[in-house]
């Protein structure tokens, strides 16, 4: 094994790229869950976003249009979930699982003509001065725009939830939908908006996988990223900045295990590939065993259907 072949700068630089898909999907799901809706279809929305993003980008030769299409596709699929759970009052867990399976199937069907095609180039930004700083430059300031857009989304979500009235209403709906309804807020409409935002973010995350991280289309390419994003929200105890920390942690693990594989570590590859998921399970167990803070932060109405009675 040759550990010296791992460059710490490259490792840290690729960490931000590896973390971006789950960061995007995670922050979207966080908003959905803060409104009291548990959408387990993140994986399905991500992969739908991945194929739509890739297809549109290839057809138009524009990565930007690809990302926009991915966001729209993710939001559209999530609104299907919204229609089923909010108006037809179907079970959120079952519907979310179905959405994942549906998304995987749909993307495989749509993606048949795109297997093995080369994607479009997504240019990396170059900021004068900042990008040229030794060490910090390559790690922080030489990525594509989406990496920074993702961080910006986290910041906007945080500020909105904390300071704005619409954020307060969103939290109120997730906390006690009966009371919110009694005060005259439109619970279902607010939840649908949150669901659509979550879907759009998941779509962006999927498109980032197929357009930047891989970059090509293969069937089932999200490979559980959506589930990690779901775990991330619990790990972050529904707080935006902690989603960022968690995403970088998981992203770091993914990159590290790839690097260890490349360095020829004498452990079967399967164990290394398992590690991010094992850590996810471990974190979830630790978070839910402590009866204190993590429970307190969970939105009280998470996963409960609202139906205005009388």
């Amino acid at each position, binding site marked *: 094994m040759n550990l010296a072949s791992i460059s710490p700068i490259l490792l840290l630089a690729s960490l931000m790229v590896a973390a971006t898909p789950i960061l995007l999907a995670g922050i979207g799901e966080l908003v959905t869950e803060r409104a009291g809706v548990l959408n387990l279809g993140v994986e399905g929305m991500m992969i739908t976003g991945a194929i739509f993003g890739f297809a549109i980008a290839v057809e138009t030769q524009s990565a930007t249009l690809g990302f926009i299409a991915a966001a729209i596709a993710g939001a559209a699929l999530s609104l299907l979930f919204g229609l089923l759970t909010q108006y037809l009052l179907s079970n959120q867990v079952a519907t979310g699982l179905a959405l994942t399976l549906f998304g995987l199937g749909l993307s495989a069907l749509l993606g048949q003509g795109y297997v093995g095609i080369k994607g479009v180039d997504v240019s990396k930004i170059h900021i004068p001065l900042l990008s040229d700083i030794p060490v910090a430059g390559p790690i922080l300031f030489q990525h594509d725009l989406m990496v920074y857009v993702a961080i910006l989304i986290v910041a906007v979500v945080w500020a909105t939830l904390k300071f704005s*009235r619409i954020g307060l209403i969103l939290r109120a709906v997730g906390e006690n939908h009966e*009371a919110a309804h009694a005060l005259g807020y439109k619970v279902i409409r607010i939840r649908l908006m949150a669901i659509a935002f979550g879907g759009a973010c998941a779509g962006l995350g999927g498109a980032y996988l197929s357009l930047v991280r891989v970059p090509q289309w293969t069937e089932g390419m999200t490979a559980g990223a959506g589930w990690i994003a779901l775990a991330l929200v619990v790990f972050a105890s529904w707080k935006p900045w902690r989603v960022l920390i968690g995403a970088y942690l998981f992203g770091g693990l993914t990159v590290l295990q790839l690097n260890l594989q490349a360095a020829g570590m004498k452990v079967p590859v399967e164990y290394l590939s398992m590690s991010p998921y094992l850590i996810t399970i471990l974190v979830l167990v630790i978070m839910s065993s402590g009866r204190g803070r993590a429970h307190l932060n969970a939105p009280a109405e998470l996963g409960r259907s609202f139906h205005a009675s009388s």
Partner: protein
Amino acid sequence: MTDLLTIQRLTKAYPGVVANDDVSFSIAPGEIHALLGENGAGKSTLVKMIYGLVKPDSGTMALHGAPFSPAEPRAARAAGVAMVFQHFSLFEALNVAENVGLGMENPPPIRELAREIREVSHAYGLPLDPRRLVGDLSAGERQRVEIIRCLLQDPKLLIMDEPTSVLTPQEVEILFATLNKLKSEGTAILYISHKLEEIRALCQGATILRRGKVVGACDPRQASAAELAEMMVGEALHTPDRPPSEAGKVVLQVAGLTSESVSTFGTRLQNIGFEVRAGEVLGIGGVAGNGQDELLSALSGETMGASETVRLRGEPIGHLPPNPRRTRGMLSAPEERLGHAAAPDMSLVDNAVLSGWQREDLTRGGFVRWGRARAFADKIISTFDVRTPGAHVAARALSGGNLQKFVIGREILQRPDVLVVNQPTWGVDAAAAAAIRQALLDLAGAGAAVIVISQDLDELMEVSDRFAALNAGHLSAPRPARGLTMEQIGLMLGGAHDMDVAHTEEAEHIKETYQDSHHEETRP
């Protein structure tokens, strides 16, 4: 003087039931008007229509003489109607200021709002810290949040739905002082309650509803409580009589009982100890959220602790789960009828089996003996006059009173040595409540030890031999119930939690400055 709010021929029907049938009445400015009626009489539906939550099928409302038909609560609030809900419309994980802000149309920035909350709440004798999480507040304090939320909008009409059901007697007095002060400022108050003495002390007019219809109107200061009760119920009420019984040997001993809270914002029990004798009713009073649920679950066996904390006839059982306790004769009925005492979507037979299979021998070799189970359910239904089409009906389909009679009857028919009930008559109509109380007294008369946990002090005074108060997880020493005054009970319940009586001059001053600053803000 013209009336503030006039309601004419309001009707609202739901599938299978007419909630309001041709209801008319009016309220003058500065009047405290009572809306009196039993549970299910249609009081809540009526005020929901005034507040814009429910649309009437027919009929008209007029506010200040102008037609008034709010499409949503926002419109009602804009017109000067504010409401304090029975089940608080509060958000536990948000702080006081955020909760108040959510109920306002155009709330000022949160810092400004916090200052206003502090000032107005002190002026009206209801001090509140705007930064505290609502989940950490007592029931009385939560109600203050609701009231302050209304007051900050300068309402012309304030609707209060059963406001005193969660307050200690001292807190009730302070609330009344606040309401009288509001009245003197010209605010009209629509006061919903079924507590007759309160209404006689507070209100100038009363409209009495029964089964959705107005059955009478009167000046409650002139009428006697018995007259009001008869109008409300439609028949003279039977007050339970207590068969004289000798207190027997100690059956249940509880000592050093300390437990974790059952929910996030629950209360821990702190070193609770008491004894109950055979043939005795121990009443445990207290405002909701002071450890009632925790105490019931510690006694029923849902939460287990050290074995010596609970002793039944000397035998330590504190470590045993519910079923072994049941076989030993210690039964319980929790507060929440649907979902805790009974499985909502299962039939009454199923629900009878779930609790009675051991003591009534309803299973054999792992199979349910449905014949016996059906007979047991039928026996409960006939003995306790449960009004239902049959035992095959789902628990959810029964009205609150009937299901409560079933749940309590199910435990009583298992011949318990100790029966623990929490809020046995909560949300139950007066006739059913009287029947349940009578059944509990008969059970004690037959030699069982009964523990009644309740927030209804009148009920406790009616049934208990001894009374103890639960306050913040602590249980006071039990005292003989006969001869206790409301004031003594109030002090046992912890009195008023840091409330001061409304300070009139200060209130005036603050209100003026507050309004001035508001008008300036709204000017273009």
